[in-house]
């Protein structure tokens, strides 16, 4: 609880921004859904056969899993808020349409008969009699839709749509439940507030409700239009994957770029998504730069030849190979940084000292097998425990552990060896040591800014700024920075700035 409160305090401006995005996303989706579903519900009154079909269609739409729907939308409308809003609208259609239709349908026929007998025109009957009488049911549908939208909008973070989902995803990614909880609580509270607000809406006179809705529509529509039309300074969009490390790096990028050209504005999209997602976003020009690893490029993003693969396996630098293959896709990578964020075999610092160990091969000195806690994937990978057995000739007494528990098990003494990533903040936190991979079993993962060639050509000063990080940042330095953000709760921007300053990469403020 204490923890939650502290996280809230340090993160409150981020949370507020995410909340704003979440509200905007939800309101736009809700208004669009209203504009579609309410007229449809009214129209369906006189077309009962279509009403049945429409109910079926909207019902089927709602059964599409949200992730699948987002996945289907990305190739069509790209990433960002567009697919998120479309998906939300799709989900909101059913409850609003259904309740509008049944609400109108279930009005006591005596009222509509009276309205007819008094010579009311159809539009007048709708506005004066039918809609007001159906309003409680329609409002019920809108409330259901709203709660649904606000809940589902947390998935927008997966497609770069922002919102409170960024907190939830980040929490899951960093195994930090307080962050997840913060995002979830905020979303739940938002749903409650909205639901209450909409319930109030029907207590107000008809005209006031319409007025309020119109004002909201104008406010949000207006900002959207203004944003689209207003002239803007050149903005470079820098995105990052989930986690503290990419967030620190993109903050360095921003500071480096902005100091070279005061006219350029850098917009950051931290925790923007998974690898393939960012890669596609880059290619479709939704973003301009993101930090990527050379190892990831050659294993997942491009297709090296068998010869190239062999060379990499033999310990060749993957950067030139990655760059060459990326060029074929009109992409380019800046110069890589120093640290290698790859698999690491980790032991306690005390243990290493006591046995004078710094390298992985030195573990062969133990006669009885050491107790190791590996996560499932590492345990079964060729470039994991299998390779350790064959290349180093080492055998451990292995216990497979969930990734989140390994460090605690090591710290608590249940195991003596574990796997990790060489820049994990826990290495710093628990006073551990990542052993040197002296036989080059693990692939090299060096970070570098990835961008499109056309972008790089148009912005040589940006490329130059980014390359100031070439061969900078060691593994302990990265561990330390991750530790500052993950454990100490420092903002990524502050940690990034401190590093750049300390290493003379940042000119003093003008």
């Amino acid at each position, binding site marked *: 609880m204490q923890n939650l409160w502290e996280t809230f305090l340090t993160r409150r401006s981020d949370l507020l921004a995410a909340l704003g995005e979440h509200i905007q996303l939800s309101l736009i989706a809700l208004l669009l859904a209203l504009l579609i579903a309410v007229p449809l519900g009214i129209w369906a009154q006189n077309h009962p056969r279509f009403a049945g079909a429409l109910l079926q269609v909207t019902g089927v739409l709602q059964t599409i899993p949200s992730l699948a729907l987002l996945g289907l939308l990305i190739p069509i409308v790209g990433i960002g808020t567009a697919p998120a809003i479309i998906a939300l609208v799709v989900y909101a259609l059913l409850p609003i349409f259904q309740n509008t239709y049944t609400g109108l349908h279930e009005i006591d026929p005596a009222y509509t008969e009276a309205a*007819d007998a*008094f*010579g*009311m025109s159809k539009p007048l009957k709708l506005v004066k009699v039918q809609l007001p*009488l159906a309003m409680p049911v329609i409002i019920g549908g809108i409330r259901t839709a709203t709660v649904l939208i606000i809940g589902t909008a947390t998935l927008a973070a997966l497609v770069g749509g922002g919102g409170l989902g960024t907190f939830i995803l980040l929490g899951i990614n960093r195994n930090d439940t307080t962050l997840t909880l913060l995002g979830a609580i905020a979303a739940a509270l938002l749903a409650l507030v909205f639901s209450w607000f909409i319930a109030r809406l029907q207590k107000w006179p008809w005209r006031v409700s319409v007025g309020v809705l119109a004002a909201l529509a104008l406010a949000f529509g207006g900002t959207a239009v203004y944003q689209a039309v207003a002239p803007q300074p050149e903005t470079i969009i820098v995105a990052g994957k989930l986690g503290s490390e990419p967030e620190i790096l993109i903050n360095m990028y921003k500071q480096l770029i902005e100091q070279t050209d005061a006219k350029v504005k850098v917009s950051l999209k931290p925790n923007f998504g998974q690898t393939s997602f960012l890669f596609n976003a880059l290619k479709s020009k939704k973003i301009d730069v993101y930090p990527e690893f050379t190892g990831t490029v050659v294993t997942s993003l491009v297709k090296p030849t068998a010869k190239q693969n062999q060379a990499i396996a033999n310990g060749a630098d993957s950067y030139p190979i990655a760059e060459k293959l990326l060029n074929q896709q009109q992409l380019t990578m800046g110069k890589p940084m120093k640290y290698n964020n790859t698999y690491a075999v980790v032991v306690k610092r005390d243990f290493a000292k006591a046995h004078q160990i710094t390298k992985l091969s030195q573990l062969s000195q133990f006669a009885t097998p050491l107790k190791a806690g590996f996560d499932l994937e590492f345990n079964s990978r060729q470039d994991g425990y299998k390779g350790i057995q064959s290349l180093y000739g080492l055998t451990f007494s292995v216990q497979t552990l969930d990734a989140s528990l390994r460090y605690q098990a090591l710290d608590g003494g249940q195991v003596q060896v574990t796997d990790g990533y060489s820049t994990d903040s826990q290495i710093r936190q628990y006073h551990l040591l990542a052993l040197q991979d002296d036989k080059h079993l693990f692939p090299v993962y060096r970070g570098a800014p990835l961008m499109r060639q056309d972008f790089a050509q148009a912005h040589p000063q940006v490329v130059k700024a980014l390359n100031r990080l070439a061969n900078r940042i060691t593994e302990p330095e990265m561990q330390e920075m991750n530790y500052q953000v993950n454990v100490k709760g420092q903002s990524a921007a502050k940690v990034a700035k401190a590093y750049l300053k300390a290493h003379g990469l940042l000119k003093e403020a003008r």
Partner: protein
Amino acid sequence: MNVLKFDHVTKRYDGRAVVEDLSLTIGEGELFVLVGASGSGKTTTLKMINRLIEPTDGDIYFNDKRLIDTDLRDLRWNIGYVLQQIALFPNMTVGANIALIPQMKHWPKDQIKQRVDEMLEAVDLAPEKYRDRMPDELSGGEQQRVGICRALASKPPMVLMDEPFSALDPISRTSLQDMVLRLHRKLKTTIVFVTHDMNEAMKLGDRIAVMRSGKLLQVATPEEIAANPATSFVSDFFAGAAPALLETPIFELASFGTPTTEQGSYAEDTPLQVVLAPLAEGKHVTVAAQAGNFKLNASQVLGYLAKAK
């Protein structure tokens, strides 16, 4: 002058006639009652007048013009409508409900306001007390008073009422019946009033049309009916009479009967109910009473029932 004329009107649903070959005329200013058992086609007949239902065959004339040749909105603005379900719009105040049609007709605002108050006063509801209330704050009887105000507000030449009081308690029903008679005398509006209650028909109607299974059996004034009842009417009437009334000891009808020297076949404390069966068959009954024996026929019993309400 005839305001309304049915000319061989038939309404069929899926081939089944629910109103069959109906011809009748209703004169200006008449309070015309359609009476008959449930399912006899009264509502169907009534709704054909304001074209909520279109006839399958035949024509209806309003002021000598065929209904289908009249503009639908004008027709409906000229024909008030009162429903059994009352159906005051629950989202509007009493005043707004009454003002509805005058508003649609674009009457000036202050004239509408004045008319609303006038109407409320006419049905014995204090305007300042009721004008701004919501319908659900009113009793059933009060609601139907407002329903009548709503139908009459724009001064239509004709008003249709479909069993307007059958959902009300007997006391409100009686006072609303009296109110309708009073309003009718004052406004001279033509009223077509549907009911299944024979007592109500006898009490209200200038003329009464008796319907059974979609057909018109008899159209006559209450006096004619009392003097010369068709047997079916008598049995319908007796069936519709209030149960308490039918418990009346027969000697109370002495003043309606004809004195006789014949021997009485019923004791004087026999309940009225017991003698209805022979009367409905057109026979008369003789009663042995201390004050002198007397004879009773159906018309005389009708006369009593019509008075007794």
